[in-house]
Each structure stands twice: as structure tokens, then as C-alpha cells.
């Protein structure tokens, strides 16, 4: 399951996408999600070279992919992926 938060919700509604697929990495999942939703939201999360923007948060079952294998982190059915565009507050 992929959940969209923050500015991503301006493009993706409803903000939850169920994807049943074989194991893939996060970048592949994001590209698949773009196709499924018909929305180009990757530039809210990645730079033109397909690297995470400063401030992008992607959690897999609550764990930040920056502490795993970044966009190479593998996911499969049953995982929950939270996508947050760069944000701040306080």
C-alpha cells in the first residue's frame, strides 16, 4: 500500500494506492505508482537525476529508506510505503 501526504495530495486523490506486484525497489514502485495514478508527482520527491530531494521522506513500514538502501530498498506485497514531499514546521 502506498500512502501520499503533503503536497502530493494536490495531485493524487484518493491519497492511498493499493499495488499488488512482485518485489521491486522503491524507484520502480514510484514509477509504477505514477503510471497507475496518471499523475507526474516524482519531481516533488526526486531531483532530475532521480535522487531523493533534500527533505523527501519515504518510509517503508515506518522506517526511513535513507537508513536502508535508499531508492534501491526492496518492497513487496504487504508493505506500507509512506511518501512525504519535503516539509518543515516547528
Amino acid at each position: 500500500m502506498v500512502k501520499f501526504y503533503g503536497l502530493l495530495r494536490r495531485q493524487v486523490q484518493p491519497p492511498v494506492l493499493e499495488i499488488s506486484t512482485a518485489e521491486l525497489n522503491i524507484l520502480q514502485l514510484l514509477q509504477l505508482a505514477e503510471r497507475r495514478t496518471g499523475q507526474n508527482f516524482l519531481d516533488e520527491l526526486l531531483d532530475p537525476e532521480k535522487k531523493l530531494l533534500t527533505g523527501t521522506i519515504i518510509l517503508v513500514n515506518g522506517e526511513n529508506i535513507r537508513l536502508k538502501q535508499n531508492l534501491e530498498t526492496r518492497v513487496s506485497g504487504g508493505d506500507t510505503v509512506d511518501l512525504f514531499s519535503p516539509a518543515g514546521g516547528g
Partner: protein
Amino acid sequence: MNGWMGKIAKIDLGSLEQETVAIDDEMRRRYLGGRGLGVKLYTDLCSAKTDPFAPDNALIFMTGPLTGTVMTSGRYAVVSRSPLTGTICDSSSGGSFGAVLKSAGLDGLVIQGRADHPVYLYVHDGGIEVRDASSLWGLNTQQTQKAIQEQTPAKTSVACIGPAGENRVAFAAIMNDKDRAAGRGGMGAVMGAKNLKAIAASGSQTVAIADPEGYKAMNARIERIVDKNPVTGKSLQVLGTSVLVNIINAHGMFPTENFRRGMFNDAEGTSGEKIAESLLQRQSACYKCPIGCGRTTRTKNKHGEGPEYETVWAFGAQLGVSDLTAITEANYACNELGLDTITMGSTIGCAMELSETGAWKEKLDWGDASKLLALVEDTAYRRGIGAELALGSKRLAEKYGRPELAMQVKGMEIPAYDPRGVQGMALSYATSNRGGCHMRAYMISPEILGHPVFLDRFSTVGKAEIVALFQDISALVDSTVLCRFLQIAMGISTFTEMLRTVTGLDFSDEELLKIGRRIYTLERVFNNRAGFSRGDDTLPPRFFNEELQTGSSRHRVVRLEEMLDDYYSVRGWDKEGVPLPRTLAELGL
């Protein structure tokens, strides 16, 4: 003089004596303005024995060298000793009051004494008029600002207290420009103890700029930087600070029911995304601010500003309340009555847990939004159980024999990040000079949000150095006096450049960091003299002994002792947290 106006006014409200003093070049170079210069002036005037409510206690309003110049420069700082914590305290607020005070010809205002009847100060053209405020006493902050603006020239900016400040509630705020708050630490109560209802400022003086061409180019550059950054240029405008609700909840560290849990089932219903699609009327911005994180909102029956992230949490998850309208209207009430929303909400949460345990006979239930407004109002007027809530959580929990149920550090309530899920923030809370506060070193930035670099939130390695560095940078920015959100988009070298073009002083980045360190250390010296030491650099036992049970911070506790000795070592303090003589000498203290 470039940057500064060169004058600080002093007034004794008892004797009505006034004087204007020049701030010498060395003082400006060593402390800049705002928080730093305010703390220096305060510690020169008052001792660690000074009672916050005594007439001789000083209440200092300060602008900084960048006030009234670059973006976000409408802010001001208030410095005094906190009646909530007993520590030195500064509280800062946005809006335009700082810029207007400076346009009246002053860098700052030092107030001592106690008026024999309610007064307000009208500051203009470098002079101060003491005006009768008997008819204003009892009015809320909105009514007060309106009434004074009817008596003063157009564009007068007003900073005032409401009934909470008049009644010396320990966490009363000072409100300016409608709903901007110098919220934390009870500066409004200090103002009330002086019988000072408000300060109104107006003026037409401008700030002299040392390098007009460089200033113009620098402004254009920082505007591009802020606009291009996805947080300052987009997220904060569209979603405000409450965008953090879902983020912090997803990390399992959104404090729920007085920090007993780290996930709130209805976080989504109180999120920034939800506010944007329901209550939001428009964004609002402070003086010269291109970011516009403020929220002008409307419920079915009321309208006002907020709620922002901390307030959404304080009246929401902290109390188990998911009614966004009730949260928002409690926020409006705090603005009108002049109360700090964080301490107000957290103290109610403490009271709910005291009630549940049977330590307190009053019946307050988790999730019950129906009593919120009455509790807030009763606190401001010290009526009924409100008189007890007005103590703040530490004194309340001590009174009922359960001090461990107050989620505070040094008497100030911890804000909306459970430290068990973020070790650097835990150290930041514990060592904060004004108590449980996120603004001394906002470690959420690297440990959760990934600005400017991403750090492992569960690691304690290297956190001492970073917390100390962030504390120094925060003290520096608070002394310029600009909005902290600029730090999201720009590093210290940009602040160096701003100071150079405005003041003409060619500081290095290292010199600015040393100014921050000097300020932080001076605050610590005051606190040491007031009796604070290592034993106070801690957190409530819940964070050491009770693991979080759900979410991605489950099974975590705070590991403070792994960081505290390193922190003191980095700071040049001894094992008890007292600055060493060589540290004081190096900083010229």
C-alpha cells in the same frame, strides 16, 4: 550607524524616570541584538535572586541589527526571568512589531519598576509616553490592540497582554499584530506584574544600510533561494506547519495522551492537509515574509489565526481530542486571553492523567473536547480548577503528589515530539536553557526532516556536537532577529552576508558561531547561579523507563547518559554542567 538605531530606552514604571543609553560598539559585536543583547543587558541589571514578579525585575524588548531590513525582519525578542521555570528566558514573536519599534528610533526597551495603576507605553520618535490603561485592564488582546490603535496614529503596532497576563498566569503570552505570540515562558505574566498592559509603537525612521548595492543584490539572491526551496517556497505556504502532524505520527513519536503513546489514531483528521481542505480561509504572513506559514481560519461560529502544529497537538493528540473545530477554537481563545498554547494544552493533559489515576478528584476525561474552552478561560481568570491549571504542569503534578506525570524540563512543557523517537532532540530538550523547548536546537530538522543532512534518529553518536552547534546557531539567529524558517533554505554564510551588507561589519562564519556560543554560555551561567545544574538537565522518568508500544519508535527509550558527558565536554563545561574558567575566558565572559 548602520543596522542598529544606536539607542536603547530605559524606563522605571514606578518612578517614571527615563533615560536613553547608547550601546557601544563592543557590545554590538559581542551580542548583536535580540536575544543575545537582551540577555546581556538582563544579566547586568538583575541577579539570579531576582523574583520574576518583583518590581526590580527587568523586562526587555529587543530588536536586532537586521530588524526592519531583509525578509522576515519584523520580529522582536522579549527577555526576562521566567515565572514558569525560574531560568533566564527569551521569547520571540513575528508580525511587524519589531520593525515598527525600530522605526520609532529604538533598538530596544528596558522596563523595570511597577506602575501604581495600569499603564501602556506609547513609543515614538525615540521617546516614550506613559499612558493610562485603566480602561483597558480586563480587555482581551484583540480588544486591547483595537482600542489602542484608535488612540494612536495609523500603522501603530501593539504588543499587549490579555487577562492571563493581568492575572499573572505563569505561562501568559504577549500578543502583537493580532495573533502573533511571544508565547513561551510567561513573559506576559511579567508584564502583568508591572501593571503594563501594552506597548504601542509607531515611527518613520529607516535603518541605514552599509552597502546598498550589495544589500540589493543579496536580497534578490535570498528571495530566489527561499522561493526555490520546496519547503519555504511551497510546503509552508500551502499546508502550514501542521503538515508535520502526519509526518511525526508516521514516525511513531506524535505524543498522545500525555506522552503515553507515540501514535494518535486520528492524526489524519487534525493534520495540515485536513486544515487546508476544511478550515483554511487564507495563508497569512509576517512583515516582509515571502513564506506565509500563518493560517487564517474559520469555524462555523468563529474566525481567527491558527492552529499551527504545536497547538494542533497540544489541544489534540496530547488530550486524545480529534475535534478540529474544538482545537481551533481553543487556539483562538488562547490568542484572545494571552496564553501559551503548548503549556496550556500540556497542562490539561497532565491534569487528565492525574484525574485518571485518582490523584486529583476533578473529572477530566481523555478525548473530551466539550470542556476545553471553559478550561482555557478559567485558567486565564484563575477561576475554579483553572486556578490550579494556571500553575503549569510541574507545580500542578507536584501538588497532587505525582511529579513524574508532568511532561516538562525545568518547568517548561515539552512540545510535540516524543524524545524516545529522536535521541538528539532528547538531548536538546534536556539541555535547553529555557526548559522543554524545541526551538533551542531543532534536531527534528536533521533527524526527521533531513535538513540540512539526514541523521539516524535512534543513534546517540555525534549528537552532542550537533546539538551544541544548533544551539549556538539558534542563539545567533535569535539575536539578528530573523525567522528560524530561513535556516531551512540557507546556511550560516548567508546570515554573515546579510550582516555584512546591512551593518558593514565583516564577521566571519566562525565569529558568528562564537557569538552564539557566548550567548548560550551566558544564559547557562545565569541558570547555574539560579541553582540549575546537571540534575536539571534531564527528562521526566517516563522517557527513560516506559518503552513506546506501537509504531516505528516502539521499544525505544531515551539514552541521555550516552550523550550528556560528551555534550558538557563539547561545551567546555565541567561534569556538573558548569562552564569551566577557560571556557569563560575564551568567550570573554
